[in-house]
């Protein structure tokens, strides 16, 4: 069990800024934990696998927005890379490279959040 601040610091996310924006630590913790149920990464991976560029763009875009809102800077940055690689693209290939970094950060974020949830 770690605190939400610790979880944020562990993954290199901006806790203080998110706290100020999202009505304090208690509310932020509620939102952040809700991210464990967020489906946009699953959707992104499924669309990438299916070669569905538009679907992948939508999912990446959502993931980008959510991580930005929650102050997950570590996740937001690779999400921007993937989103931009998919914007207006016909194929998903251009985003594969960025996906790698995104998946890494996603795994780190989820694991830190799970620790905080325990």
């Amino acid at each position: 069990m770690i605190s939400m601040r610790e979880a944020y610091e562990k993954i290199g996310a901006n806790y203080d800024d998110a706290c100020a924006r999202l009505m304090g630590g208690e509310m932020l913790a509620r939102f952040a934990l809700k991210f464990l149920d967020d489906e946009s990464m699953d959707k992104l991976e499924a669309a990438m696998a299916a070669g569905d560029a538009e679907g992948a763009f939508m999912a990446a875009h959502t993931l980008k927005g959510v991580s930005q809102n929650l102050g997950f800077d570590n996740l937001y940055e690779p999400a921007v890379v993937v989103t931009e690689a998919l914007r207006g693209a016909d194929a998903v290939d251009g985003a594969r490279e960025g996906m790698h970094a995104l998946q890494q950060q996603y795994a780190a974020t989820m694991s830190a959040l799970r620790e905080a949830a325990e």
Partner: protein
Amino acid sequence: MLNNHEANLTDEEAAAEVARVAKTYPVVRLLSVDQIKSEPNCLLAGDRCPCLRQSSLEALADSDEVSEKLLSDGTEYRARLRPLKVEGEPHVLLMVRPINEQEAAEEDLVYTDVLTSVRNRRYYEEKLRNARMNAGVAVIDLDDFRVFNDTCGRHAGDLALGAVATAIRSGIRSTDELVRYGCDKFVVVMPNIPSDDFTRRLHQVSDAVHATIIPGHEYVRLTACVGGVRIHGETVDEGVGRAVQLLSRAKTKAGTVVSDADSIEAFQSEKPLVLIIDDSEMNRVILNEMLKDEYCILEADNGRTALDMVDRYGDELSLVLLDIVMPGMSGFEVLADLSRRSVSDNLPVIMISSEDSDDAVLRAYELGASDYISRPFDSRVVRRRVSNTIRLYAKQRRLTNLLSQQYNERVKNSRMLIDIMAGVMELRNGESGRHVTNIEKLTELLLGCLVQRSGTISLDNEERSTIALASALHDIGKMSIDDAILNKPGRLTPEEFEIMKTHTTMGADMLLELGRHHVGNALMEYAYQIARWHHERWDGKGYPDGLKGDEIPIAAQVVSVADVYDALTSVRVYKDAIPHKEAIQMILDGKCGTFNPLLLDCLLEVQDRIAETLARPADVVAFPTI
């Protein structure tokens, strides 16, 4: 007169002073500090007391005379509490006497607001502000009063305030205090009022204000927001402070009544409805949390559902928060759809997206978005933007309403006046029926057609209806033509005809003279042109000035055709009515003088509509003859 602060009397002197003041005060007591502090009952009236103990102690503490007004058994008394020393010991000389009417009236005057005849701010500051009691305290704030004042004038504003004060009085108890607290703010203090009665009365006050009729502005409906709190031993001012806070929440919607006794749900039902459209549940949850305290939240996860909800909730919706990038219908498409339905004129849409490129922002604005919030969300910014936008739109709606009510009323009034004047003229001219109305309709028809056909004449809707309105005054000069000539059954002699012709110049002069305070007014300008030149002809053979072709202002040209047509098709003392078709043919053939060929084309084009639009002879109700 004794100087209160310094007075130190002997027992005898004190007794003498008591006897002296007893001549003017029916009740006089000399009280020692011990008596004041220890006497179990009221110093004046035992247990029926409007207590003066506190005031007595105050007088002692401040070494200054305290004056109180008190009500006992329906009579008002003036109590004066003068601190003095008797044998070195502090005492209070208590003097009470009924207030005579004149004195009461004078005091009332000082504390009465001139406009509304309720208590004024001075009364509040001196008598109410620091009073501690158990009471309901309410602040009543008129909505958009400044707008009303600015548009209807100060005098109307003053009348409205008086009417509102009377309305508020009708909703509260006679013993409650009503103060004009600020320009458009009132404070009501209702001592010892049960909670449910307090809430009920606040609603009564709000209803009464809404039902208020302002003399001379019967079409205006005022509303007030009411914020009420109950105080238990706190000062009235503390109560007012809390009520103002409560009110600032209520102010999102005109006419809201909110009191701290309201259950949360009751207040929630007053909350503005906000629709959040975002495909990400996470983002909806965050926004919902930010806004749910102040608003009722609806959510939609795609554009289709959102549009259905907009249709279903219609005017109840106060604001839409709209994500740009969504699967299916994008936010831009939703926005475009809303604009097409012209919903977005009344329903503000705030776009939300991380697409903070200038293009996205500009496109959103072009499509009618009111504002734009970019990610990451900041609760402080989101809340403020949402509340500002809602207030702005609500205010704008009320304002538009007020202005259009007024505008319509004005138009109706000037219409009515012109109709009456035209009626009087017809009566005198012996023109049966609706000559003036017909000419107005004809003028409008011909003008509409003319603007379409001509490449050079441009008159917008408003100008056309102004000309049509001005046409009602075309024969105003006939007012100064002798009745014997005006209503002569037979043919006019050449001399009589010369006199008759002067109705054009007389009318024009009249308008010039009567309208000299309205120089530059479009209606006046047109009315002048029409009155003077509606008997001119295209070939220069008309009167009074023999103008030719386009020297004749277009307004006068059009009215001249309309006038001729209506004269032909109406009954006159000297002739029968000529049928529609025949009349048109006579005009085309130049039997009534030559007209602008373009106008004759127009006449041909609208001839069927003329027959439809104008009152047929059977419909005509003749004015009574004198």
